[in-house]
């Protein structure tokens, strides 16, 4: 009991530090972050970040990393727990194979966001690139979530096996997603605000009507997304979302002859 109480107390107590990352090579920067975690810091602000890769890669601690500047590829890859905030744009492969935690990007993000992600949340205020949410999967209580405020490139939700992908489409005209939405989909749910023409959907995808559970899920996520990213979602109407689900969790069951 005493141990649990001490742990709780430690958690409440924030020990913050700011690191100047200007011109620091990623390997040194990431080692510095790990060293600081080892010293008990729970909130680490990195100033002057400019393309350094692998920030928060593989970290399992209950800490917060605040990034001022544009982090490089594989931000939060294999991450399992931390909270990462980027006060700028991010590049490719954010949250690659991430297991839990949260990444908030107050800007745009690149391609292959949340590849193979199994848990946690990624919120991108503006647009995202190609193949976002590819092969996301859920397992037991873990349901990964990606919310992008703007539009997305082709192959949005390709191969998705679980989890929730939300595309709000703020500031986009016409269709917010590119071609091949949900191609290879065999699990999970994709919500896109606006209409995606049939021809842009993967063959494995069907459009389903919104249910009350979906509405409350979307309302909750959009509120959290708005609070975290500062996006203006005042005019977003939940009823404008289309819901996409796979018609089978075994799309390729009949491809073989024995």
């Amino acid at each position, binding site marked *: 009991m005493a141990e649990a109480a001490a742990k709780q107390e430690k958690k409440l107590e924030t020990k913050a530090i700011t690191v100047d990352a200007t011109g620091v090579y990623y390997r040194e920067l990431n080692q510095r972050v790990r060293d600081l975690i080892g010293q008990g810091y729970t909130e680490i602000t990195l100033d002057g970040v400019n393309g350094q890769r692998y920030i928060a*890669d593989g970290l399992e601690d209950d800490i917060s990393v605040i990034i001022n500047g544009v982090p490089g590829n594989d931000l939060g890859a294999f991450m399992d727990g931390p909270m990462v905030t980027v006060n700028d744009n991010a590049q490719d492969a954010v949250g*690659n194979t991430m297991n839990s935690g949260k990444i908030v990007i107050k800007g745009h993000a690149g391609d292959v966001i949340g590849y193979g992600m199994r848990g946690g949340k990624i919120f991108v205020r503006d647009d995202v690139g190609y193949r976002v949410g590819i092969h996301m999967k859920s397992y037991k209580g873990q349901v990964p979530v990606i919310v992008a405020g703007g539009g997305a490139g082709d192959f949005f939700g390709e191969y998705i096996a679980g989890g929730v992908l939300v595309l709000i489409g703020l500031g986009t005209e016409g269709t917010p997603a590119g071609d091949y939405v949900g191609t290879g989909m065999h699990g999970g749910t994709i919500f896109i605000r606006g209409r995606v023409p049939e021809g842009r959907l993967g063959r494995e995808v069907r459009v389903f009507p919104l249910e009350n559970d979906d509405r409350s899920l979307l309302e909750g996520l959009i509120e959290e997304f708005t609070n975290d990213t500062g996006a203006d979602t005042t005019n977003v109407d939940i009823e404008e979302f289309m819901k996409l689900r796979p018609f089978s969790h075994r799309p390729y*069951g009949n491809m073989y*002859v024995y």
Partner: protein
Amino acid sequence: MPGDMIPSEFIVEVDHQRCRRCKRCILNCGFGVFDFQSMTTADSSKCVACHRCVVFCPEEAITITKNPLEFKEHASWDVNLRKAIWKQAQSPGMMLTGMGTDFPWLNVFDHILIDACQVTNPSIDPLREPMELRTFLGRKPDKLDIKARGDGEFDLETKLESNIKLDVPIIFSGMSYGSVSLNTHRALAVAAQKLGTVMNTGEGGLHEELYPYADNIIVQCASGRFGVHSKYLNAGVAVEIKVGQGAKPGIGGHLPGEKIGREVSGTRMIPVGTDALSPAPHHDIYSIEDLRQLIYAIKEATGYKPVSVKIATVHNVAAIASGIARAGADIIYLDGFRGGTGASPAVIRDHVGIPLEIALAVVDRQLREEGIRNWVSIIAAGGIRSSADVAKAIALGADAVGIGTAALIALGCRLCQKCYTGKCSWGIATQRPELTGRLDVDWGAERLVNLVNSWSLELKEVLGALGINAVESLRGNRERLRTLGLDVTTSEILDVKPAGM
């Protein structure tokens, strides 16, 4: 019209005078061949010749023969081609198969001879003289900086990269939990620990129970990222990025939902009963630069453990391997086109890729010519069948070899090639609890240890005959090989002289 126009491949006969109706055959057959109605009956059409019934029949009452039924001979139309057409005409789909290709391609290993010492240089007797099979996998420095302390002692100034110590140059190849049973994984882990070598998890994650074997495990990260999380990445001595597999270069994998029971679901971290679909490429790797990105993402997540990159041997393998070395990999795992699989479309297994022997030779030569051979270790797998193959592969440039099929044969596998059905009577390539329990872990581990120890003895004997006392001195030593019956071009590509020269 008859539904199935294909005659049985094998004929099962029960000698009813010997049969004492104990029904062991009924219990043992995973394919449901046997039944009992006043006497034991057999449905030959279901038999795959896995011999489980024959081995367990106490009266030796069962015989399995090849169906002697003659087909009209035709030089162009092999019977198997006709059978495939009948099957595909009946139900549309790709022909699925298991294990390595059974197509009769030229086997290059069988056309390579090993040298021995006579008169002019002494051979070594491995029984009485030390013989070193130990080797280290991982990056080696370009040069060593050594500083004299001044008191006659020296300090090594060069920082060495982390390497994996192998007591024998033979590792167990990646076979996923899911494609094989947990007891198979257990036997491989126990054997690897006893032998001082490593097993590769394959792409299905690592069962929690096997985490204590960390020093003898290489964990795999494949395109499906099944069961990949930061604890898993740190659960072994190295991480392998699986780009390709010899039996199915360039294509992904589909582990059918039937094989995703509760335990497999827990290790792969996907829901029970869903297909585990591995995409054909890693979608974060579309180039050598992207590969470098993933290699270093893994290194960052593991405190810079060695990273292996597994590729299938394809036409342009030498240039690809050079790229992999330059991308920062510590180990290149070459999987030849004879490599095994739990399931692959037959068209891919039988017709895509190139032989390991040739790939190994050209990769080793390319890396040497570029002066970067020391940056990576090479593991050769996909076609290693005996200690002779091990010796030849090492002489062609491998640091170590991987065995998968050979290990399964040691566990009872009869190469029936029906792994994809999940009905394996030997309890190897199945998840059905009544079948998996048959493979006793200690029994299996002992057989694997026996096999590798036997090959080690043979390897030492070969080294002794060559007058070499360390396996590392055999690596890339092509002068001690000769080809027989290979065309000039292939010999030149192998960089091995024909016998007599």
